């Protein structure tokens, strides 16, 4: 018997997945309409991130009973690694756009140097994810090293997000384009939501804060869908009517 709460959650989840799918489609369509590489890449990675989020939420909403199975745990690890890479490339494409608009051509917050380090650590953490995968497959025993990996991953993720927020804020002051400002604002809020989700998820699980199969922090993902939708709308000014 399905409860009213579960139906409501399913409806909210479906609306979120649809909003994300639309954001993704729109970002990819705008990419095709643009010429310049930096802007095309920004649209591409906005679409990629929206696609990733849509897949993740669809998995939580439609297949909650299989979470915990071996295959899903492995898939979850792959998705987690993909998230880090997509986020790094996406942030980099955003910063490239704002750098190109900066008439001072300043290397604010030393982004051009730091991004190499960011990339290196991202790849390192993704490579480290092979250890939990080997554990899940039964090749190695649980070891304290996992605690270290998880702590490192969490610390790096939070540090990366804080750094990206600082860079985006530094460039925000030189950008005059209202649409670009709206995009950057949404980007910042989205990063904050991701950060909260990552920090609060273990707390939420430890305290058993669940509504049906959903962790309470999953509700933050609904907010992220709103910001991604706003970003797909702020990629470029469009006209919907032909006027003289």
């Amino acid at each position, binding site marked *: 018997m399905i409860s009213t709460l579960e139906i409501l959650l399913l409806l909210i989840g479906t609306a979120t997945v649809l909003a994300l799918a639309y954001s993704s489609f729109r970002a990819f369509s705008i990419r095709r*309409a643009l*010429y*310049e590489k930096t802007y095309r890449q920004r649209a591409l990675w906005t679409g990629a991130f929206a696609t990733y989020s849509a897949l993740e939420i669809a998995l939580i909403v439609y297949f909650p009973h299989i979470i915990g199975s071996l295959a899903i745990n492995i898939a979850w690890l792959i998705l987690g690694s993909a998230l880090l890479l997509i986020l790094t490339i996406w942030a980099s494409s955003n910063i490239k756009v704002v750098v190109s*608009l900066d*008439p*001072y*051509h300043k290397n604010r917050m030393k982004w051009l140097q730091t991004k190499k380090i960011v990339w290196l650590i991202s790849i390192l953490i993704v490579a480290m994810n092979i250890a939990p995968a080997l554990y899940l497959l039964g090749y190695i025993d649980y070891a304290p090293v996992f605690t270290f990996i998880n702590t490192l991953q969490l610390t790096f993720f939070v540090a990366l997000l804080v750094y990206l927020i600082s860079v985006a804020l530094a460039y925000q002051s030189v950008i*005059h384009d209202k649409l670009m400002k709206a995009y950057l604002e949404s980007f910042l809020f989205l990063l904050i939501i991701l950060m909260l989700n990552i920090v609060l998820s273990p707390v939420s699980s430890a305290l058993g804060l669940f509504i049906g199969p959903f962790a309470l922090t999953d509700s933050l993902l609904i907010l992220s869908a709103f910001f991604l939708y706003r970003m797909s709308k702020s990629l*470029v*000014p469009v006209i919907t009517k032909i006027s003289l």
Partner: protein
Amino acid sequence: MVSTGIEDLDHILEDRGYPDRSAILLISPPGAGNAPLAYLFLKYGFKCDDTVMCLTSKPITDLLNDMAVFGVNKQSPAQYIQCYADTSPYSLNNLTNLFINIKKQIDTLAADHKRIYIDFLSALYMLHPAKTVYTFICGLIQYLKDQGATIVASLDEGVVALEAQRSMEMVFDGAIEIKIFEERFNIIPLMRVKKMMSQTPSYNYYRLAVSKGEIHFHDFNT
């Protein structure tokens, strides 16, 4: 008449090109394709042995790489002047100095046909009040035209306030506009010749296709 460097656009324009010694404004959302129109205009200039000059707020290596996509040889003889908001003689911060130094540079060029591309209009609006930019651009455009130049300048929609964009359109002899048109789930770039000196306004929109270093325009009917 000065060829635009794009066969389809030459056919769209009544005189088969931009008017000689005119200034043309290319307006588009950022990244939507105003720069390629300018690159092909310059490329044709190299082909005709015209004198070519770029006044850019981009790093010159980036500009050359972008132009190379459209078949412009990086070794082509042209004057590239980088205009940043820095302390160089071509600083966008000091418009009087900028004008004097551009003038000096123009005086060194041969007196025959000149093709000039300016891409720092949007950057100027970030640094100065609209009135100051208007006065500076009016003076610069008039001087360049007097020196026998045909000028194309790009402006990013959205970066500049609408009133400022309209005032720029008044200063220039022609304005070509690129818009991203969204109809249901279809998003396409469109182009129209909004204004062109000594030509009848047509208001027709054309579908813009940029591929393999070429630009094509196709009739667009809503």
